Each structure stands twice: as C-alpha cells, then as structure tokens.
C-alpha cells in the first residue's frame, strides 16, 4: 500500500513538472452541420478532421459536439452566460462578430497576416471577419446567395426564352415581372416572399434591395436606408405582385419552408438559393422531376448586388491561454492545411476564400456560374451593431406590408426607425 502511495505521489510530481507541451490540452469544438456528411452520419466528417489533427498534434485533444441550426444559437448563448462556451466554433460572421463585440472571443489578429489578406484579395470578405477593430473569424469558404427557378416548367410551357440562360444569366425586374405573370396565367404559383421569421431573411432583403436598386445601408454601414423611394417602390411592387397572384404570400414560410415548396415543385421559384442549397437538395429536386437553375436576383439595371455567405472559425476566450493557442492551431489546420483546407472548402460546397487554393471545381459548369457571381458581392452588413435586433424588424414589417396592416412606406419607415434605433442602442 505504502509503495503504491509513493508511486502515486511520484507520478503526480512528475506530471506537475512536465513541460506544458507534454500534457495534452483539451479543447472543444462546436460545429453546426455545415460540412457534407460521411455516410449521412452527422459529425463523422468532423471527427475525421479531428483524428487527422490529433495525429499531427498529439499534444492537443479536440472534443466534438454537433449542434443544429434550430437550437444551436440558443445553446451557445446559454453556454456563454453559464461559462461553458466551447473553444472553437464554426459559424458565420453574423453571430461570431456579435460574440466578439461582446468580449467573448479571442482576437485572431495574428492570423490575418499580410500574406493571408493578399491571398484572400477581397476586402469585403476580410471586413466581414472583423468588428472594425479586431478580427474574430478566420474564414474558410464563401458562396453567393441567389434565386432559382424551375427550368423544366419553363421548358414545358415554352417560357424558357423569357430567362437569360447565357453567361452570367443577368436579368431585369421587367423580365422577372413578365415571367411571373406568364407563369401565373398558366396557373402556376411562383416564388414565395417568405417572412415568417428570420430564417433566410437575407434573401428577401437582397430581393427587395435589387428590384429597383435601393440601398439597404449607407456606404459607411452606419445607417439603414431602405426606406428610400426605390425601396418603397420595391416593397409596393412586391405587395402588388403577391396580391395579383404573380408571387406567393409567404407569411407562414421562412427561407427553409419556401425552399421546401420549391424543391417539392409546388412553386416555380425560390428567392433564396446557393451552391450549398443546390447540393443539399439535388436528390429531392431530382425526385420531384425537375431541373433547378440558379439565377442572380433581378434588378432594374440588370446588375445585381448579392448577399453572400462566409464560413469561418472563431475561438472563444475562456480565460486559458493554452487553450486559445491550441484552438488557433486547430483552426489554422482546418483552413490552411494544403490537404484539409481545400477538402473542407469542398465539404461546404462553396468557394475558397484563399485564391491560392485555385479552382476546386474544374469542369463543373454550375460551380463556374456560381463563381462568376462572386464579383457581384455587395457590402457585408451582417456585422453592423444591432444586427440581431434589425432582423425581427425586417420580417415583422414585411409581414405588416403583406397583410396590409401597413403601407409599404410605413413598413419601411418603421423598419428603418427600429433598425437605426437598434444600431444606436448597441453603440
């Protein structure tokens, strides 16, 4: 017994004097299901990345926890307030920068080297990773948000020539109007103007903004400005088109629900689409017996200004420098490793933020089209102060306009007042 106690003490002493590097640092990674799955098993792909990382870095142990888009954000907030936040999170700037602004994240300024910025070569993407002072998200991939239509229906009804299928497929609001009217006349239900909640609400903001080239925010990203003449005209147009049956009332649908109806073939278009959505819904679209074709959002001048997705990693500041270092090592492995970096980009079905990764989809015409859309990226406003409070103001007022409780002008004036108040309150 005495011998055992002595050995135990000796072991404890040995462990305590070992260099830090010899002891495994344990970090936790919370992942939304953004990456493509292996064998349709959630988390299997992520675990394979961890295994590869741990093999190369035996001094770091990574624990994985998969979270879903429905309850995940709530879980993160609860964990932050309870002091049990993860060390690494894979998400988008909207939430990440908010956590950063509130002092919950470790800054990643040291990762944004001149070499990295030059490789990304896109100021909007770089800016989306920062709150203006510090970088909080290390980006991996990006993809544009577009719309899509049911090409098969257009072919069957002889309406395909109403859509520009050449090159970048740019089209105008007049062409969009004419197509919807023609389809409605043939008894079809068209794109859903979804606004049940904030799910996919970036789609309707971009749609309204583009119709008559209204500006959602000022160039300094300090003031919401969609209640301009062009914005009001766009919302009134939408209300009128819904009332005429050329577009579909979406008060009871969010972005996901609207996409489901498109994928099921119930409606002929969707105002929200992306390469990732196209891939995830490819089987369902095929089962519904039609071909979906992505299009840029229509605008009066035929030049869209698109919303886009940026995926990236954040590191929580849990008060342990060793964990922060380990977490940074882990996220650079996932994004910069010459093998796993490009592989992870492919798993998101998006495009690399690093130009040096090259064309990851050689010969893929669809992805080439999506890639051609990245030049139409607009200003990234998801990191504006008060962004979270702006969102209910958006879909709430969109609902009010569609139900007729507010005129288009009243709805947008109220939206701008609420969104600007949220901005001011967050200063």
């Amino acid at each position, binding site marked *: 017994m005495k011998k055992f106690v002595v050995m135990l003490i000796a072991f404890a002493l040995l462990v305590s004097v070992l260099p830090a590097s010899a002891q495994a640092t344990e970090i936790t990674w919370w992942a939304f299901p953004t990456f493509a799955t292996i064998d349709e098993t959630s988390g299997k792909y992520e675990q394979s990345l961890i295994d590869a990382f741990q093999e190369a870095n035996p001094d770091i142990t990574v624990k994985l926890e998969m979270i879903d888009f429905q309850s995940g954000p709530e879980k993160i907030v609860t964990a932050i307030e309870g002091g049990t936040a993860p060390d690494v999170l894979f998400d988008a700037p909207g939430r990440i920068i908010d*956590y950063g602004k509130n002092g919950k994240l470790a800054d990643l300024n040291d990762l944004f080297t001149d070499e990295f910025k030059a490789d990304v070569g896109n100021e909007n993407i770089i800016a989306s990773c920062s709150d203006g002072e510090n970088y909080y998200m290390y980006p991996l991939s990006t993809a544009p948000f577009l719309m899509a239509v049911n090409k098969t229906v257009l072919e069957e009804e002889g309406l395909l020539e109403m859509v520009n299928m050449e090159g970048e497929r740019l089209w105008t609001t007049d062409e969009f109007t004419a197509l919807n009217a023609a389809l409605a006349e043939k008894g079809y239900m068209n794109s859903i103007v979804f606004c*049940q909640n904030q799910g996919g609400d970036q789609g309707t903001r971009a749609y309204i903004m583009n119709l008559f080239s209204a500006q959602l925010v000022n160039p300094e990203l300090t003031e919401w400005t969609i209640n301009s003449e062009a914005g009001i005209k766009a919302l009134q147009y939408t209300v009128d088109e819904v009332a005429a049956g050329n577009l*579909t009332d979406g008060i009871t649908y969010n972005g996901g629900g609207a996409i489901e109806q498109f994928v099921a073939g119930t409606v002929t278009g969707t105002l929200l689409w992306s390469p990732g959505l196209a891939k995830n819904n490819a089987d369902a679209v095929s089962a519904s017996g039609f071909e979906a074709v992505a299009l840029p959002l229509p605008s009066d001048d035929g030049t869209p200004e698109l919303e886009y997705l940026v995926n990236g990693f954040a590191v929580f500041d849990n008060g342990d420098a060793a964990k922060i270092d380990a977490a940074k090592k882990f996220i650079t492995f996932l994004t910069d490793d010459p093998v796993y970096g490009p592989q992870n980009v492919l798993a998101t079905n998006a495009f690399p933020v690093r130009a040096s990764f090259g064309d990851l989809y050689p010969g893929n015409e669809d992805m080439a089209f999506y890639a051609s859309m990245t030049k139409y990226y607009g200003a990234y406003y998801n990191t504006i102060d008060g962004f979270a409070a702006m969102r209910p103001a958006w879909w709430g007022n969109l609902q*009010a306009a569609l139900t007729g*409780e507010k005129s288009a002008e009243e709805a947008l004036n109220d939206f701008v007042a609420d969104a600007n108040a949220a901005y001011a309150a967050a200063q």
Partner: protein
Amino acid sequence: MQANKFMTMRQANQREAITAYLFLLPALIFFFVFVIFPIGQGIYTSFFNYTMKDFNWVGLGNYIELFQDSVFLKSLGNTILLVVAAVPFIVVFSIFASVTLYEKSAWIRSLFRGIFYLPVVTGTVSVTVVWKWIFDPLTGILNYVLKDAGIITRNINWLGDKRFALWAIALVLFTTSVGQPIILFIAALGNLDRSQVEAAEIDGANRAQVFRYVEWPGILPTTLYVVVITTINSFQCFSLIQLLTSGGPNYNTSTIMYQVYETAFRLNRYGYANAMGVILAVFIVIFSTVQFRLFNSQIDY
C-alpha cells in the same frame, strides 16, 4: 423526573424533526437550486440592463420600457385572449367528454381515453408539425377539404391571416390540452359514490340534474386543478407559436413566453426578458388566485 421525561420527549421530537428534514433535504436542495434560486435570480436581474456585455442597474427601467413596448403589449393581449378563449373550452369539453365516456363500456372508455391522450404522449412538436401541414396555405388538407366541400373558393392562409391565426393556434392548443383533463375527470368520476347517483336517479332526477347536483360537486376539486393547470399552461404557450407562426402575422399571435424567448436568445437582452417573465408570473398568480377564490367557495372538502 418529570423534567427529565419532558427533555427526553423534546429530544425525541427534535430527532424526529431532524430525520424528517434530512429526508426532505435532497428534494429541498433540488427545489432551491433549480426553482427558488432561478426565480430569485430572474427577479433580481429584471432590474438590470443585463446583456451579453453589460450588467447595469436600471431599477424599474425594464418594466417602464415594457409598458411602452407595443410588441410586448400586443403579446400580452394575445396571451390573455388565448387563455380566455381556450381554457373554458378545454375544461367544458373535457368534462363533457369524460361524463359521456364514463357511461360507456370499459373498452370504449379505454379506446377514447387513448385517442384523446394520444397528442399528449406524441409530443407537442410532432403534433404541431402535423397541424402546420394541415394549415399549409398551398398544400394543406384543410383548404383542400373545405374547397372540395364548396365552403371556400380559394385557399385561406390560416396561420398568416390575422383574422384566423390566433384561433388556429387556440384550436391546436385545445387538441393538445384536452387529453390530460379527460383522464383526470374520468378518474374523478370513478371516485364518486355511485350509490348517490343511483339514489338521485331513483328519485327521478334526469341526466342533467344528476350531473348538476351529484357529479359536479364531486368533481369540483379536480375541476379547480384542471382549470389552474390549463390556465398556467396556456399562459406559457410557446412551442406552438414558435413552430406554427413565430408570432406572426405582424405579432398577431405572439405571446409573452415567445417574446421572452426572442428577447433573451435572439436579442440577448436577458434583463428585459426576465422582466417579461416576472410580469407573466404576476398575471398567472392573479388568474390562479381568482380561480381558487371562485372555486373554493363552492368546494366542500
């Protein structure tokens, strides 16, 4: 000698009390940690501007803001309307169904008890998703059936039209809430002294009179319980709103519980959300107190 005996009895009583408290201790610890402490914390933080970043004393600031917040006031109105509309229907239907079923054969009673209880064991989320499909404005079966029957000529957006949305929620709330009361009422009817019912029938009482003068007094304590619990559950209606309407259209189906969730987890305004929770608790206490007073005056324990 007498003093010694007294001390011994006192000690024995003390020991008994200590033993009792020790047995109660695990439950009390659980109750204080997971009920009393969060309630206290919720009330305490409702006086703060408590966000992810700040924790500043604002006194009654949150409460003053609440009563100037049109969304909160609308949600409060919707919540009360939902309670006032749904609870009487749930209670009356449950009593009616229980009294009717109680007289049926055992297997019919079991069958319908199972049918009514099915939504309770199925889970609110699953049932609500089915209702969402039923109400779907484009593909829902409700519009299909009503159009086929010639009752409507074009699809109605049941959850998106403010004239119908809250009533659609009330209907779903009704279907998910009647199972438990029916079970309780059938059990309460089973506990009644049937000889009293038979005596009343022999004396010439009709069915309505038997219910009014024999069964109703007997199930009154159960009714009080059902009314209070159903009221509290209706006040706390959240998942139906989240899954069916997200509070829309234009906050016409938003409830206080839903706003508590939105404010805390979407806007990260925890103090403000807690103030909403306190107001909700106050309303529940007021409603419950009134119900207890009204029923207690009639209950003969």
